[in-house]
C-alpha cells in the first residue's frame, strides 16, 4: 500500500475517534453539570481546557457562557478541535482514500457529516443535546463496526486501528487531567461530591459500568486511575490502547524499532504506583505520558509514512 494512503487512513482513524470522544466529552459534561449544585459545578470552560482550545476561543468574539462554549466545541469550523472540524478532517481523509474503503462506510461518514454540518449552523440547546450527540457517537461506532466487519484486515486496516488507539489514549489522558483538575478545589466544598466527580471521570471515558464490573469496590482515586491507566481488559484504558497498537504494528513490515517505542511506554505505565499520583504529581505524570505518545506517533510516521531510503532510488 502507498505510504501516502497509509498516512491518510491513519489520520482517518484518529479524527474519527476524536469526533466520537469530543461528543462523549460534551455529553458527560452536560450530565455532570446537571448533577451538581451550582457552587461546585465545574464551569463549561473545563471543556476548553481538555481540548486545549482556550486560546482559540478567546480569539473569537463571544463570552465564555454555556451556549457559546458548546457552539464552539460542536460546530465552530475555526476551532480545529471542534466536532465539525474533526469530522471534516475524517471525511476528507476517507474521501481521498475512497479507493480502498468499503463504499458503505464512505456513505455513512458522508451522511453523518452532512447532518452535523446542517446542525452546526444552529445552537445546540439542552433539549437537543442528548439526541444529537448520541447520534454522532453511534454513527462513529457504526463506522468503526463496518470497518471491522467489511474491510480486509490488512495493512490499511492496521493503520486505522493504530490511529484510533493512539487518539483514544491521548484523549483519555486529557480527560483524566482536566477532570482531576476539578478535584483539586477547596477540600471542604468538594468532599461531599468527590465520589460524584470521580464517577464523572469514569463516565467521560464510558468506563463507569465496566469499572464496577471489574473492580467491584467503591470508587477510590487509586482504583480509578489503575483501571484507566493499567487495565488490560478495558478497551479505553491506556494500557489496552498501547497493546492494540503493538498488535497492529506486528502485522506491518519492518515493525521492530517502532514497537520498541510503544513497549517502553507501556512498561513505564505498568510500573507506576497509581496511589502516589495525587494532585500535582498526577498532572506531571500525564504530561510525561503525553510526550511519550507523541514519540509513538513519530515512530509510526518515520517507519511507514516517510521511509528515509525512498528518496534515493536506483535499480532495485
Amino acid at each position, binding site marked *: 500500500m502507498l505510504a501516502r494512503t497509509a498516512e491518510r487512513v491513519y489520520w482517518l482513524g484518529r479524527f474519527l475517534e476524536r469526533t466520537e470522544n469530543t461528543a462523549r466529552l460534551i455529553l458527560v459534561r452536560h450530565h455532570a453539570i446537571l448533577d451538581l449544585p451550582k457552587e461546585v459545578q465545574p464551569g463549561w470552560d473545563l471543556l476548553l481546557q481538555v481540548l486545549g482550545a482556550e486560546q482559540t476561543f478567546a480569539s473569537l468574539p463571544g463570552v465564555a457562557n454555556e451556549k457559546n462554549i458548546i457552539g464552539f466545541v460542536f460546530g465552530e469550523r475555526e476551532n480545529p478541535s471542534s466536532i465539525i472540524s474533526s469530522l471534516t478532517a475524517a471525511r476528507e481523509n476517507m*474521501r481521498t482514500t475512497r*479507493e480502498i474503503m468499503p463504499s458503505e462506510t464512505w*456513505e455513512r461518514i458522508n451522511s453523518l457529516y*452532512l447532518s452535523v454540518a446542517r446542525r452546526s449552523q444552529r445552537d445546540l440547546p439542552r433539549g437537543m443535546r442528548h439526541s444529537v450527540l448520541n447520534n454522532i457517537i453511534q454513527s462513529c461506532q457504526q463506522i468503526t463496526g463496518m470497518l471491522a466487519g467489511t474491510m480486509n484486515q490488512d495493512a490499511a486496516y492496521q493503520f486505522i486501528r493504530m490511529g484510533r488507539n493512539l487518539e483514544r489514549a491521548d484523549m483519555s489522558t486529557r480527560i483524566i487531567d482536566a477532570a482531576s483538575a476539578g478535584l483539586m478545589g477547596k477540600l471542604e466544598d468538594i468532599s461531599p461530591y468527590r465520589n460524584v466527580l470521580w464517577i464523572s471521570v469514569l463516565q467521560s471515558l464510558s468506563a463507569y459500568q465496566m469499572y464496577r464490573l471489574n473492580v467491584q469496590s467503591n470508587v477510590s482515586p487509586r482504583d480509578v486511575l489503575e483501571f484507566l491507566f493499567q487495565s488490560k481488559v478495558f478497551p479505553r484504558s491506556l494500557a489496552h490502547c498501547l497493546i492494540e497498537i503493538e498488535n497492529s504494528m506486528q502485522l506491518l513490515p519492518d515493525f521492530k524499532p517502532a514497537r520498541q517505542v510503544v513497549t517502553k511506554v507501556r512498561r513505564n505505565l505498568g510500573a507506576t504506583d497509581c496511589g502516589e499520583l495525587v494532585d500535582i504529581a498526577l498532572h506531571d505524570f500525564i504530561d510525561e505520558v503525553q510526550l511519550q505518545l507523541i514519540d509513538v506517533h513519530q515512530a509510526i510516521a518515520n517507519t511507514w509514512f516517510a521511509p528515509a531510503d525512498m528518496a534515493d532510488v536506483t535499480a*532495485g
Partner: protein
Amino acid sequence: MVQAKIKSPQPYARARPRSTVDWSSYNSRDFYDEIIGTGGRARPATRSLVEFMRKQTIKHLISRQQAADLAIQEMGVSFTVYSEGQNIDRAWPMDIIPRIIALQEWRVLEKGLIQRLTALNMFIHDVYNKQQILKDKVVPREIIESSPDFLKECVGAKPRHSVWSHICGSDLVRDSDGTVYVLEDNLRVPSGVSYMLENRAISKRVLPQLFDRNSIEPVADYPSQLFDMLSSLSPRQLKHPEIVVMTPGVFNSAYFEHAYLAQRMGAELVEGADLVVGSDDKVYMKTIRGLAQVDVIYRRINDDYLDPEVFRPESALGTPGLFRAWRKGNVGLANAPGAGVADDKVVYTFVPSIIKYYLDQDPIIPNVPSYLCVNSKHRQHVLENLENMVVKPANESGGYGMLIGPSSTKKDRAVFADLIKKNPRNYMAQPALRLSTAPTLCGNSIEPRHLDLRPFVLQGKNHYVTAGGLTRVALRKGSLVVNSSQGGGSKDTWIVDTEAN
C-alpha cells in the same frame, strides 16, 4: 327525535382525480425526441417507461427525484467546479427519467464506434512512425505538423498492440431526422464513466419497479473490462501486473472518478509524488514496504503535466522520468502521450477518409459536416452564416470558448469573426445541429431538453464498448450546452432489447 342520517362510507369511490403525467401536453416540436415519437406515442423501446409514467403523479415523480438527489449526496457523487477562484464540490445532477436506445440500433452504433477507434489508433501509430497517410496526401502534412498536439518526443514510439488511445469517449448526437453523428472524439483523458455507473446505481435504488418490465443491458461490467484492457498493456508478463490510476490530486474536477475507478478495479490511486523513476528507467511507487515496481499507469493527467523532464518543467503534478520509462517500454501508459493528435477538431474532419484509408470501409457513424476556417472557401461560408453555426476552437474541451450561433448576440459574433480572421487554423465550424430531446423533470413539469451521449470505448488487445454511455442533458430550456461545468445534467441510459419484451 330525529337521528342524523349516517352515510355509509364508500370505500371504492375515487377521491379527487390525481394529476398524473399527461403526455398530450408534452411537445418537443420538430426535434427528434428519444422517448416520445410522432403523435405523442411511445417508441417501441420506450413503451413500458411511458406507460409506467402515465400512472404516476407528478408529485410522486418529484419525490423519487428528491430521493435520487439525497442518494447522490450521501453517496458523495460529486464533481468539482472551479469558479471565482474557488473549488466547489457539487453534487452530480441526474434526472430520474432514463434515456432509452433500442438494442438493435445500439448494435450498429457499437460497430461504428469500434471501427472509428480502430482506424484512429492506426492513424496515430502511422503519424508517429511511417507517416504513410501523410506521404499519400490523404491528410495534409501541414495540419499534423502545425498541431500543438503532435508531440515530436513521441516519434518512433511503438506502444503495445500499436494502440495509443486505449480509452476513448466519443460524443454522439442525434439530429432532427434521427441520424446519429459523431460530434467529437476524446482520445486523451475522457471522463464521465463513473457517473454512468453511479446513475445506474441510483436508478436501481429509486425506480426498481422499472427494471422488472424491461430487458436492460447491464453496465456494471466496465471496471473489470478496463482492468483487463490495462493488464493487456503490461510490459512484464505477470499474472498480476501492478496497475495504478494516476490522478492530479484531490482538487481535480474528476477526482471522484479517479478514486471510483481505482476502487472498483482494486488498483492503487497514485499522485505524481507517489511515483519515482529509477536509474534503471523503471517506475516505482512508494509503499509502506519501500518501493514497488509499477507495470501499467492509467493516467488521468494531461500530457503537459505528465513529466517535467520532457514537458512543462514547472509541473509538480507529474513524475520526472515517466516519459523515458514509457519510451523504453518499461511501463504501459493509458492513454499514450501524443494520442491527442487525432482528436484535434481539424483532424476530426478527416476521420471518414482515415477510416477509408486504413480499413477500406465506409464510416458506419457519419461525421457532422464541418468547415475548416483555415480553408478560405470554408471560412467565407462560416463568416457569412455565423448565426447558424457552432464555432469551436480546434483544441479545447469542456465547452469553453465556443460560439453557438443561434443563441449568440451580434456582439458575440463580431468577436468570433475577429478571432477566426486572426487565427483561422484554430477554428472549425459546424452547422448548428437540431439536437434530439428527451422528457426531463423540470420543476413541476416534464419538458423536452436537449441531450447527447458519450459512450466509452476500450482498445487494448481487444475491444469493448459500454452498453450505452453517459447521457448528458442541457437543463436550461432551449440550451444545447450539456457540459456539467456549464449547467448540464445527466440521465441514466438504457439499452433495451425490444425483442425480449
